[in-house]
């Protein structure tokens, strides 16, 4: 297995502001993200040779991408892999370049959630018939419920009472809102206090509304090329070091599953570290963007991705390890917490932040002297029917 390391570079990226964009269509979002990326890469639309669209519910076919951008008669494909969809669009594009089939390709992730009028996002109803199937009879639990279950067990396992546990979670939320307040593309650009988080109404016990990410519209885009061609486009291309996806197969049916970690996170991260040649991720990574759909998930991610040892995430939270000025800044752009989670757009939005950080163009959020950045998504029916996706990028 040779892997993708250093074969493909990102030479341009675009990202819309995320939010409740009542006056913007899917077409508007795609055009804005793609044209920012074209401009960033100093290319013309006609330079694109192939394109991939990542969206979960804002378009069923590639036409949803080719039509707004007028990518007439190009090979265009729509990909979908739940919350990892944006990262999957980039992965498909990168592999096509690495295979030598194309030189310049486009990956776009888009989602327009706010037209539905729903609270939260679609869940089990879009998964279709699975081997978990109990036709129409399965409980229709929401996403916060699935993560709340993990929180209850995690706190119990490590002897943390719920009040104490909620305080650790609140610190994660406060950190992400602090970062989001520095980001003009975030949906929520406002600081929150620990007390506000602790007092927010319960959505799924023990998680409150402020433990949950928003529901937003947004799009992001990337232009990829061969690593050996990258410098023709710009002096500071960003190189793909690893792309990893790990898909679960119902480990939750087993009596030995602990409900305090998500193995897809662990496996995707280990694959990515191996591909990128990373031995000590906590030391080697300069920045990470992770899937903080609910605060408890970011806490589990610290352990699942190998940065905190099991049961010790609380100590790293207390120590400020993952704050903007900390040892390993996490969700420097505000995360899903402040961007919301337009499913197909999130993965590429995270990559956008790492890309800008590695180019030292992140403004007030800029971390010092970055070399390696990581992104992470998790999607699916939690636990056991999940997809974990990681990317590692370097300058």
């Amino acid at each position, binding site marked *: 297995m040779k892997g993708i390391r250093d074969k493909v570079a990102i030479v341009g990226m675009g990202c819309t502001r995320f939010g409740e964009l009542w006056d913007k269509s899917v077409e508007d979002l795609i055009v804005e993200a793609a044209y920012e990326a074209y401009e960033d890469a100093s290319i013309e639309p006609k330079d694109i040779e192939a394109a991939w669209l990542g969206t979960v519910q804002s378009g069923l076919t590639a036409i949803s991408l080719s039509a707004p951008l007028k990518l007439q008669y190009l090979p265009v494909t729509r990909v979908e892999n739940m919350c990892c969809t944006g990262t999957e669009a980039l992965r498909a594009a990168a592999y096509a370049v690495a295979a030598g089939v194309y030189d310049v390709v486009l990956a776009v992730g888009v989602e327009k959630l706010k037209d539905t009028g729903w609270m939260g996002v679609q*869940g089990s109803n879009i998964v279709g018939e699975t081997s978990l199937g109990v*036709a129409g009879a399965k409980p229709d639990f929401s996403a916060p419920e699935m993560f709340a279950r993990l929180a209850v067990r995690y706190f119990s396992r490590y002897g943390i009472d719920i009040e104490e546990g909620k305080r650790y979670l609140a610190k994660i939320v406060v950190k992400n809102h602090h970062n989001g307040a520095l980001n003009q593309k975030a949906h929520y650009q406002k600081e929150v206090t620990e007390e506000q988080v602790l007092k927010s109404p319960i959505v799924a016990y023990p998680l409150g509304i402020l433990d949950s990410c928003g529901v937003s519209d947004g799009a992001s885009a990337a232009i990829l090329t061969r690593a050996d061609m990258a410098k023709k486009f710009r002096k500071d291309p960003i190189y793909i070091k690893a792309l990893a996806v790990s898909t679960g197969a119902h480990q939750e049916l087993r009596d030995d599953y602990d409900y305090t970690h998500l193995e897809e996170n662990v496996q995707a991260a280990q694959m990515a570290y191996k591909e990128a040649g990373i031995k000590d991720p906590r030391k080697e990574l300069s920045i990470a963007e992770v899937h903080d759909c609910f605060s408890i998930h970011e806490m589990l991610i610290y352990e699942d991705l190998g940065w905190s040892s099991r049961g010790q995430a609380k100590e790293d939270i207390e120590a400020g390890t993952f704050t903007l000025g900390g040892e390993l800044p996490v969700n420097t752009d505000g995360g899903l917490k402040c961007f919301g989670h337009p499913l197909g757009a999130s993965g590429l939005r995270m990559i956008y932040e790492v890309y800008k950080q590695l180019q030292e163009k992140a403004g007030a959020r800029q971390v010092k002297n970055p070399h390696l950045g990581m992104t992470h998504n998790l999607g699916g029916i939690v636990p056991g029917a999940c997809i974990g996706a990681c990317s590692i990028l370097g300058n």
Partner: protein
Amino acid sequence: MIGITSMGVHIPIYRLNRENIARAWQTRSLGGEKAVAGYDEDSLTMAVNAAQHCVARGNRYTAIQGTFFASTTSPYKEKQAATAIAATLDLPSNTYTADITGSLRGATMAMNLATGMIKGGMAENVIIVGSDCRLGMPQSDHEQRFGDAAVAVVMGNSDPIAEVKASYSVYDEFIDQWRFENDIFVRSWEERFTISEGYMRVLKRSVTEFLEKGGMKPEDFSKAIFPGPDYRSQIGLAKSLGFDPKTQLVQPLFSSVGHGGSAEPLLTLCVALEQANKGDRILFTSYGDGSDLFVLEVTDNIERLKDSQGLKAQLDRRLEINYEKYLSWRNLLPIGLPRRPEPQMRSVPRRWREQKRILALCGNKCRNCGTIQYPPQRVCVGCGKKDDFDDYSFIGRKGQVFTFATDRLSPSKNPPTMSAVVEFEGGGRMITELTDCEPDALKIGMPAEITFRKMNQSTEMIDYFWKARPLMDGLKYLEGGVHERD
């Protein structure tokens, strides 16, 4: 020796105090409370739970060759419900099934049919469930009187707890209570007429004829059951027939459950049998479009009914609801639910091919590595071996809560929705919805059992499945759980 070999009961956990109804309408309270089927229950789910209790109390593996469902409130006007009960009991396909609808004495009619089947060699054991969720029109006496309940009996030809010594039936074309095709509320004629010329006349005549035929006298019976619209009329009837209401008449559960409709005769019989001793003779009757009458003699197998999940335990276990909630659960008061995507696509073929896992709650156990998995898998989640499993049913198994959560986004008529991962004794896990439980009671380690419920209901289909609820034996765990704060 034909008789009742087991008896099971399902009283829904919810109670509506009649004062709440009276207060809403500025009317007189009939006193006490009534049992109210939960938002996720109907006459079929209650019947399944009573049937499960009944077979667990008897011998679960007794071969049952017939299933009768007696109800005036079957969820289906066209389509049988007894088949669903048989499927949840995983009975073989040559089991005889029938619904008896339209009469409040359906359950005793079924007892007579079962007796005939057993006598004729068509069956050795037959299960009969009486179950009803009748609606009285808001502000009416019916609304206060009717309660929801289900009771199941197995009739068989060996080891009865109460032997049928004699039986008798009469029909009587009499219009006292009725519902037409599209009625959701029970209609009735003036009570002064229906009680004196209906209930009193029919039972007086039939009891007198029955006793005369068998050369029996009122003093031959330790107990008598005369199910009727109210207790006062029952006392009057007992007196006029020469029975002592104080010592012989079995008092119905009007102040705690209400009139249970098709379940009412068996419910009162359940009161009698759970207190009965060996040798007791019971005059058991029913009323509705005539009357069915039985002489039952209690045997020493009566000990089988003295378990901790019987009628008394179910009456003690209660959660009070208010009138508004009751109205919304009965679709008499529309409510606004959270705006959420439609649940997954309904598909009858899917439900049909997955029937065993849905109704009989059947998972599988790997012959190679022993992993128990639900729903059943083709390739083992433990060792990866393909198609090498035995069926493994979770019905009747107890478990405990491994982890839990609440869910305020999932639309519910009794928010918040509660979830639990239940670990079952002997292995296997299930992510379930919790019901019959207050969020304050949720706790890791809480003992739980499964219960048959409606999951979703659209105008097109009802999705029946199993949920978990706190185990009745584990009531102490209902105290001191975590508290949800908003």
